[in-house]
């Protein structure tokens, strides 16, 4: 019982980061029907920014806003340089473009920085824990969960209450009709990338605090988690993406602690197997969305 509770808290912490990543993937998918395999590059780029800043003597207090700002700007630059040119293109072109962006960013850091792991100091409190009864809770997980819940609440408020949020939801439901209402494709798509970058930036802060290092391929793992969680939740559904993130985090933690030691290293594989099974029985994901036909 205690162990299960412990797993749930750990899973919530891990799932929070996945939820932020998945929500960013889902927001962009909503307006552009682009499954963004370059989403993890926001973590790569902001990771190097953090590496330079921290090794230049910046404190984490200053580095946190830097990471977020860099992630947002990177998201906007990628939109402008790559995705704005393939707007309205078929799914295959969009997918290839996002893979292209991933490889270009990877190559830039590989060629012009280094192939080796770059480390930076982690904040001291990351490994601290506190006890609640017989539970040992990480300070880090607590911070991640609280910040994520606040971020999700803020995002919900933006989507429900602001003109931008309303425009985004209308454009995601039916882009042509949204344009008939006067919604400009440029501003809604750029807004979606900025929001996606902001969410990735917050996730990146946590990802980097825990990792304490970055490499040119650092974006692959968070990208996979974000894209998979969005798929698990049901592509296009924002609520589903958040749910998918938590489900994925929870599944990883539970499997890692429950599987016998000899196969615990195969947790990832088992998770993928479960995801494959989910798609066999529920291909639309956890939360189904019916998309308006796009002409």
């Amino acid at each position, binding site marked *: 019982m205690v162990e299960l509770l412990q797993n749930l808290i750990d899973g919530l912490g891990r799932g929070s980061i996945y939820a932020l990543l998945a929500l960013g993937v889902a927001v962009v998918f909503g307006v552009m029907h682009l499954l963004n395999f370059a989403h993890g590059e926001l973590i790569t780029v902001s990771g190097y920014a953090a590496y330079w800043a921290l090794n230049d003597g910046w404190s984490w207090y200053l580095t946190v806003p830097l990471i977020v700002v860099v992630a947002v700007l990177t998201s906007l630059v990628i939109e402008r340089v790559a995705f704005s040119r393939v707007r309205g293109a078929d799914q295959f072109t969009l997918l290839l473009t996002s893979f292209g962006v991933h490889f270009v960013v990877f190559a830039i850091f590989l060629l012009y920085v280094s192939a080796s792991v770059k480390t930076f100091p982690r904040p001291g409190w990351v490994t601290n824990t506190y006890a609640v009864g017989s539970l040992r809770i990480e300070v880090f997980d607590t911070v991640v969960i609280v910040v994520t819940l606040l971020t999700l609440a803020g995002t919900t408020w933006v989507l429900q209450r602001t*003109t931008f949020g*309303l*425009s985004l*939801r*209308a454009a995601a*439901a*039916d882009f*042509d*009709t*949204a*344009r*008939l*209402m*006067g*919604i*400009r*494709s440029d501003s809604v798509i750029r807004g979606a990338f900025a929001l996606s970058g902001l969410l990735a930036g917050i996730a990146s802060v946590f990802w980097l605090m825990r990792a304490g290092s970055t490499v040119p391929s650092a974006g692959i793992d968070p990208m996979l988690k974000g894209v998979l969680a969005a798929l698990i939740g049901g592509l296009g559904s924002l609520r589903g993406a958040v749910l998918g993130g938590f489900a994925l985090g929870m599944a990883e933690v539970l499997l890692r602690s429950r599987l016998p030691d000899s196969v615990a290293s195969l947790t990832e594989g088992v998770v993928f197997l479960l995801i494959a099974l989910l798609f066999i029985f529920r291909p639309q994901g956890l939360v189904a969305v019916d998309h*308006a036909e796009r002409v």
Partner: protein
Amino acid sequence: MLEVSGLTTAYGEIQALRDADLRVGSGEVIGLIGPNGAGKTTLLNTIAGLLAPRSGTVTLEGDDVTGRPPEDLLRAGLALVPEHRRIFTDLTVEENLRVGGVTVPAGERGALLDEMAELFPVLRAKWTTAAGYLSGGEAQQLAIGRALMARPRLLMMDEPSLGLAPILVDVVFELVETLRAQGRTLLVVEQNATRMLEVADRAYVLRSGEVVAEGTGAELRADERLFDMFVGN
């Protein structure tokens, strides 16, 4: 107000609209009638900027707006209630109306929402319901209300009575009357030619992508050849 001349629109090789001329004066209610596949929707969608014309011009209040995107045309005063309504089913009734008003200054949206609630009492009762749960008639009224939220100078409607029960068709035509009484300018595509000719000041008849006749309801009704064309269709 609106002047369309020589408009030709094609889907690939197929010319859905050929050399169409049309004029809508301020405060007029103009019908656009004709059999299925005559190019009525193509004409509205081209005027609204959803389709790019091959040739011809669209002039709004003297400004050439040909080929401008729909989001600009809306700001120029041209709103379209699209075919099949295309309401945002995941959004509530109120949110749908708010989306319609995104181009209006924020301070004026409240008054417009009140106006819509008054004009469409059925919507008022379902204000916070997801629009996907509305009946066909309610959804049509929402689609029209959403377009009115932008305070258009010219409102275009594509088949507002399509798929509605007869009693709701009455509601739609009463609404057209109400809007006319408010002094609004309307361009309405209708497959229900008889009813449309009763409320329209003038109408254009399209067939196989061409404007084949134009005139007042009385003139067009008197033309038996035309009358047979729809009623027989």
